[in-house]
């Protein structure tokens, strides 16, 4: 906190300090070539930081130093104009419309502004006004569909769920593939910090839908996001930006900006609902073999929905603790009423999201400031889940003298979340909810089950025995109402980030810039499981509590010398030299308590045994870098960069490395004299080559003892200290990792080329890019034979390649004089990835998942292979050969496909291509907008479906009892593992497969439990196409006419009605296929009782004062 105060005090000092007196006043009027006055034009004394803007009547006034020679007039949409000052004190200016926006300036690496036409690589810019559309308060999810080649996956619809972003494919295996996030020149952390006590070896397969720190930013504070897609664009950033970068520029008060105070108010409210849930059968009730078994019945029959037809069942009306409707009896029993099947959709409620932000900004000739406060309040579609976020941001700049400008910004964020358990976790909401037989009412007839304990508690106060009311009589899976009340997860976050910058104009052609900034947060999680909760953290529902406190701090310093020189009329150039220092430190303190004494008392002191852990890791890096640009006649630009880096994560002999880039931009329409051509005024060709190095993760070069644990895939296991004795192990359960002191940096080399074309007064513009990248020496934890004693060994090993195409086409098909305009834009991209090699002799590597459905990297295939058990083929080495159909009449699976004993690649999670279509109709203050996102291809393992089919609640099991003959050839494997088939006598085994005339068999419980679902059967039937077409957004905005607004003494008023995700077209049978079990991590494509996605309807008000 003390740091926050210091930074704020410094910033205030900067904002309110006064600038030097100036020498001469110049005034004038700025008009457009059509005669209209131009407000808001930026006027700058060339070669200084002195500037102002024109008022509503196009008038400006500026103090000009005696030695100044020219004034520069800048306005978006107009061609920038430079005018000599001379002796006059009155300069009127006429500016020309610039439909092509050739002078458009974009922010590039290190916050350097460059003309867009000079760039030899592809970038795309998203304005802040596009980041508040969905009302979600999450700037990252708003990027979806807005940038060609940017893949955005929201892990679930939970409040505060994570958002995964990826550009140009996977370049590293176990490190992050997400772009670097930079706010006002300072890299900020985008980690996911979590601990999943329900899957100790599983990397987030259970627990809650985790977040990532990128969701903290208040989108209302963002001026724009420049997306730097490839290594050529990010070469100056180095290591952290090997997967691209999001350069976020926040709104600020600018010295010389609009005079006086202006206020901006943004307010939105929306309602959220689940947009798609897995298909379920609603015909058969609880039990087995068509026979009803009650929650209290003995044995395992009650676990299933393989019971009788619901039409044959009734409630006897004798209310009991298990069912307020009464016991289930055969229909027609005296006094009974037919049962009403339970509908799991009733569990979900309408979520509400309120987003409010207010910003005040002001400026005078020498200083400017902006202050903003944002508040987000969200409740989820799962009852009792919520997310509250408050942000305060302050920024300012001042010209201390005409040579020195100082600026700074600081943002404080406080958020809290309450989340529900999900995924592979017997306390997960969806797991218990969807496995519930529809003869059992989880709400027990209550009208408000989320807060009515009679829905989920048998005896109150919780006493002894199984006190939880659920369909399995206590043990098994938590009643979803129990889990939201009795398994609380709460997270608090306090974060501050900000930066200060000084720019000193040493000469007209040389500026020195120093920028320092940091990002500090603490994130505390408290997660508890009440006594009688079923989560696999403790046997017999003994209860437990987990406290995790994360701390992260990182600081970044850049010193930059920026030089510009015009050599002659044809040549000019610039040179940037810089030095960077970056340090990061993270720690985690974990405390766990097991076996509660007092029910519902979620406190560490309530535990009978304890466990604790601590972890710290840090990184230090420094680098020299430089960028030189040569400009020939403003039509040919050559840019060279280099960065020399030293890092703490590699051993002293390998810790220094260098990587260069070169790019060329040619505005060929200038060379061809087409710049005034109405049909084809602008065309640019660009080509670049770049290398980026990447270091290891912290502490990957050593092998370390850890407190020992032993566990297997079925149980929580044992951990040390045991009986009071601490114990240590280097193999650490089944995740022991051998460090490597000889690691060298990874390298990604990239070639990129493309063109930007503009036709018909910019009514059509097309940007096309082809890129090819190769990452070599990729450092990763190579999985090893357990017989080595370890599970992984760190090596520089893998080679990955990516190549692809990004297209963006922006058109204005209709533009009428009466103001009607129709814009239609397309983004399309296709990336082809290949994991060329992993490590000698290593065929695959598990990224995350389950035995029956997991994501792997497989040598020779694209990253993200769904690997699992498949049906046995008649030719075991050819997965495309006919399926072997069991010909042993004494087997329960006679006539059904047989299952192979080894795993096979079954599909890939990466889409074939992604695209989006956005369109806007604008007319007299009305704007009707729509955005359609398309993901074509890309498989998902629908483990939810597999489990539901196993238990008999899955939709496909409604057809139980139907008959079919499976396509394939008869046969089986003999004791030696060879394909054989039975001769007519049914005993003699003949070599090879037999007839393709397979018997017709009944698809019953055996089929769904062993052959047709991946729960314990093969993975193959549950690998599904995750492609979709989604109406991401439909919105209608009405902006009040300017005259009307001015009468109210306001600047702007607009009201928007929006709908998100209201149409989803997909073959996927689970929740919204935009889903991720592990959250924002590399192993996308897993669905195992993921919480559902949402659709929403909302209103947004935007007022400018």
């Amino acid at each position, binding site marked *: 906190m003390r740091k926050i105060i210091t930074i704020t005090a410094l910033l205030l000092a900067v904002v309110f300090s006064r600038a030097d007196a100036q020498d001469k006043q110049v005034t004038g009027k700025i008009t457009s070539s059509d005669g209209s006055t131009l407000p808001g034009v930026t006027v700058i004394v060339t070669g200084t930081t002195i500037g102002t803007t024109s008022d509503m009547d196009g008038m400006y006034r500026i103090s000009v130093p005696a030695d100044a020679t020219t004034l520069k007039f800048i306005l978006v949409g107009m061609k920038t104009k430079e005018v000599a000052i001379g002796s006059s004190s009155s300069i009127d200016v006429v500016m020309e419309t610039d439909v092509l926006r050739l002078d458009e300036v974009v922010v590039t690496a290190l916050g350097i502004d460059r003309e867009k036409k000079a760039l030899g690589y592809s970038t795309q810019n998203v304005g802040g006004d596009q980041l508040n559309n969905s009302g979600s308060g999450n700037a990252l999810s708003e990027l979806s569909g807005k940038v060609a080649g940017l893949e955005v996956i929201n892990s679930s619809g939970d409040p505060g769920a994570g958002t995964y972003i990826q550009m140009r494919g996977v370049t590293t295996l176990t490190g992050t593939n997400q772009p670097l996030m930079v706010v006002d020149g300072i890299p900020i952390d985008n980690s996911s910090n979590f601990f999943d006590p329900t899957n100790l070896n599983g990397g987030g397969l259970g627990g809650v839908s985790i977040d990532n720190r990128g969701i903290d930013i208040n989108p209302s504070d963002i001026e724009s996001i420049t997306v730097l897609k490839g290594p050529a664009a990010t070469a100056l950033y180095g290591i952290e930006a090997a997967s691209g970068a999001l350069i976020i520029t926040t709104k600020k008060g600018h010295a010389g900006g609009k005079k006086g105070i202006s206020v901006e108010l943004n307010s939105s409210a929306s309602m959220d609902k689940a947009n798609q849930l897995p298909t379920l059968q609603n015909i058969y009730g609880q039990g087995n073999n068509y026979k009803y078994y009650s929650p209290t019945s003995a044995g395992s029959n009650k676990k299933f929905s393989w019971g009788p037809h619901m039409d044959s069942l009734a409630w006897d009306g004798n209310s009991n603790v298990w069912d307020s409707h009464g016991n289930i009896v055969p229909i027609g029993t005296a006094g009974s009423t037919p049962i009403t099947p339970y509908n799991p959709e009733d569990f979900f409620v309408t979520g509400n999201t309120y987003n409010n932000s207010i910003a005040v900004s002001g400026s005078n000739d020498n200083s400017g400031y902006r202050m903003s406060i944002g508040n987000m309040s969200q409740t989820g579609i799962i009852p009792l889940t919520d997310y509250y976020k408050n942000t305060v941001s302050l920024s300012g700049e001042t010209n201390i003298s005409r040579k020195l400008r100082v600026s700074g910004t600081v943002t404080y964020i406080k958020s809290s979340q309450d989340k529900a358990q999900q995924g592979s976790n017997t306390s997960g909401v969806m797991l218990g909810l969807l496995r519930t037989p529809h003869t059992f009412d989880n709400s027990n007839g209550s009208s408000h089950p989320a807060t009515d304990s009679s829905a989920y508690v048998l005896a109150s106060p919780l006493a002894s025995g199984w006190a939880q009311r659920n369909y399995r009589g206590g043990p098994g899976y938590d009643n979803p109402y129990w889990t939201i009340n009795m398994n609380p997860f709460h997270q608090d976050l306090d974060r501050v980030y900000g930066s200060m910058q000084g720019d000193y104009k040493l000469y007209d052609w040389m500026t020195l810039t120093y920028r320092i900034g940091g990002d500090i947060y603490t994130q505390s999680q408290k997660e508890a499981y009440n006594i009688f909760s079923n989560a696999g953290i403790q046997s017999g529902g003994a209860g437990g509590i987990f406290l995790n406190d994360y701390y992260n701090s990182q600081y970044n310093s850049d010193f930059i010398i920026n030089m510009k020189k015009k050599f002659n009329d044809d040549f000019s150039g610039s040179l940037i030299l810089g030095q960077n220092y970056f340090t990061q430190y993270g720690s985690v303190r974990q405390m766990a308590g097991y076996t509660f004494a007092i029910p519902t008392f979620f406190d560490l002191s309530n535990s009978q045994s304890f466990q604790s852990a601590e972890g710290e890791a840090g990184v230090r890096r420094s680098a020299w870098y430089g960028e030189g640009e040569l400009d020939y006649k403003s039509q040919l630009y050559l840019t060279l960069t280099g960065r020399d880096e030293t890092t703490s994560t590699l051993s002293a002999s390998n810790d220094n490395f260098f990587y260069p880039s070169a790019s060329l931009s040619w505005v060929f329409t200038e060379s061809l004299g087409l710049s005034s051509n109405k049909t084809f005024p602008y065309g640019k060709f660009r080509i670049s080559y770049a290398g980026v190095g990447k270091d290891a993760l912290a502490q990957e070069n050593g092998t370390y003892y850890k407190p020992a644990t032993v566990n297997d895939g079925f149980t929580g296991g044992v951990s040390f200290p045991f009986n009071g004795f601490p*114990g240590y192990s280097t193999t650490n359960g089944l995740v022991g990792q051998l460090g490597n002191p000889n690691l060298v940096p990874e390298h990604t080399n990239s070639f990129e080329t493309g063109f930007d074309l503009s036709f018909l007064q910019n009514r059509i513009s097309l940007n096309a890019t082809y890129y090819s990248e190769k990452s070599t020496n990729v450092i990763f934890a190579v999985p090893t034979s357990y017989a080595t004693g370890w599970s992984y060994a760190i090596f520089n090993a893998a080679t990955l390649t990516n190549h692809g195409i990004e297209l963006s086409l922006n058109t204005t098909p209709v533009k009428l004089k009466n103001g009607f305009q129709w814009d239609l834009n397309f983004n399309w991209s296709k990336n082809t990835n290949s994991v060329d090699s992993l490590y000698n002799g290593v065929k695959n590597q598990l990224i995350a998942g389950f035995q029956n459905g997991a994501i792997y990297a497989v040598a020779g295939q694209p990253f993200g292979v769904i690997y699992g058990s498949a049906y046995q083929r008649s030719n075991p080495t050819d997965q495309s050969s006919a399926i072997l159909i069991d010909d042993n009449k004494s087997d329960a699976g006679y006539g059904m496909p047989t299952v192979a004993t080894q795993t096979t690649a079954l599909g890939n999670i990466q889409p074939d291509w992604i695209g989006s279509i956005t369109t806007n109709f604008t007319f007299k203050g009305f704007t009707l907008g729509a955005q359609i996102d398309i993901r074509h291809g890309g498989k998902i393992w629908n483990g939810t479906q597999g489990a539901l089919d196993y238990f008999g609640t899955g939709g496909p099991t409604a057809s139980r009892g139907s008959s079919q003959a499976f396509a394939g050839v008869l046969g089986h494997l003999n004791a030696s593992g060879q394909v054989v088939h039975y001769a007519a006598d049914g005993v003699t085994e003949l070599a090879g497969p037999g007839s393709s005339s397979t018997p017709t068999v009944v698809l019953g419980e055996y089929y769904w439990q062993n052959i047709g679902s991946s729960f314990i059967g093969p993975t193959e039937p549950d690998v599904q196409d995750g492609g979709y077409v989604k109406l991401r957004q439909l919105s209608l905005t009405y902006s009040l006419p300017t005259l009307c607004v001015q009468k109210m003494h306001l600047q702007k008023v607009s009201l928007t009605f929006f709908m998100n995700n209201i149409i989803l077209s997909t073959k996927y049978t689970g929740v919204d296929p935009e889903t991720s079990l592990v959250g924002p991590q590399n192993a996308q494509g897993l669905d195992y009782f993921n919480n559902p996605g949402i659709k929403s309807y909302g209103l947004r008000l935007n007022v400018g004062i």
Partner: protein
Amino acid sequence: MKNIKYLVLTLAIGMMLIGSSCKKTFYTDANINHNAPSYVPPANLLPVVEIAIGYTQGGDLSRYTSMLTQQTAGVSRQSAAYYTYIFTGQDFDGLWGNLYTSCMENCSNYMQVADAAGYNGHGGIARILMAYTLQLTVDAWGNVPYSQAFKGVANLNPSYDQAQSIYSAILQLADDGIAKMNMDTLNSPALQPGAEDFIYGGNAAAWIQFGHAIKARVYIHQSKNNPAMAASALTEANMAISSSANNAQVLFSTAGTGNGPWFQFNGQRDDINFAFQAYPQQTTYGAFLTGSNDPRYGVLIDSAAELATGVGLAAYYGNANSPVEFITYEEIQFIIAEATLRTAGNTPAAQTAFTNAITANMTKLGITFPADSAYLAMHGSITGATVANALDSVGYQEYVAYYLNPEAWTSWRRIGYPVLTPPAGSQGASNGVPHRFIYPQTEYSYNGAAVNAQGTVTLWSPKVFWDN
């Protein structure tokens, strides 16, 4: 004015140079792991090895083998599949991984640390535990990596050794362990193992008996049609565990972080049945015991609880702090009985050992007069016209006594009694009850050449060398 500019520029360039003039330790110090001890004494390595072996044997190994011998029955989810022989390579990853890393790599490291610092007792214990784990591994898979294993990056693709040669290595490890234990007293008391030894509390004599017990077991395994091996087994057995008080076993804990493997599985998974007459799958074991009015049935299995809550494993093996037994006194007595039968025939000595074994097992379970005597009167005699028939008596009693212990499967594979038929609907039922495990998927993925050299492997073929 010019001078100021130069000063600023000089300062600026000076600042840039500072960045590059940092000492190397400026970087390397940032990479030090402060949360890991650089040295761990043997006293904090031994308990990890003991608990790892206990948890691994009492976990997947006990579950898989007890389902194959039908001492238990898998009734739902994965266990239902295993019970009907639906296994994939992945099903063995966890077990194999725990044996090699949690048990044997930790043990190998423990051995090196103990030897380097001159701890004789710890060095002896390490060898005996290594011998024991290796024996569990070989008896499940036959040929496995050993001589090239546990070498880390020095050998990422350890080749497989012939099972028979690993058996020789086990005997050597046991001998070396016994020799080291005999030197334990040469160490000062501070260097001798103590309370951190959860098995014997540092009792060297007991460890020596355990060492001989492993040797006796290894010999008796090879005694089928080989009287010389039976004779060696007899010799070793007479030096092995002399009373139930010296049973080699690990006790788990009631503390939440230390519960035993069966307790955890039953509480968290509840997929396996134990009782006779339980639904949907009664156990063959339960049927045998109830059919012979065995008083142990009611002690080992709680059929009422199984009907009520689904968990039918009674307190002795089913509690949070229940033992996982490695080798017991009754096993030694069974070995003596079997070895005597194979060498001298059905002599009074064989019968004495047989009676000792059953009595020891019942006494351990708390069964006293008259229930034990009544049972012994009915079933306590080695019967049979031939040695083979007499061996069936021993085989049956071993099957009963080695409840949930992988040795029950080994004993059944050697003696072939009681007669077990595959459960209804088993995959590959025509091949009978499985005789071995298949290799794990991780070996095919990460050590392909070595495991493929073993040829095609199924649950029935090739058999472990002593099983032919």
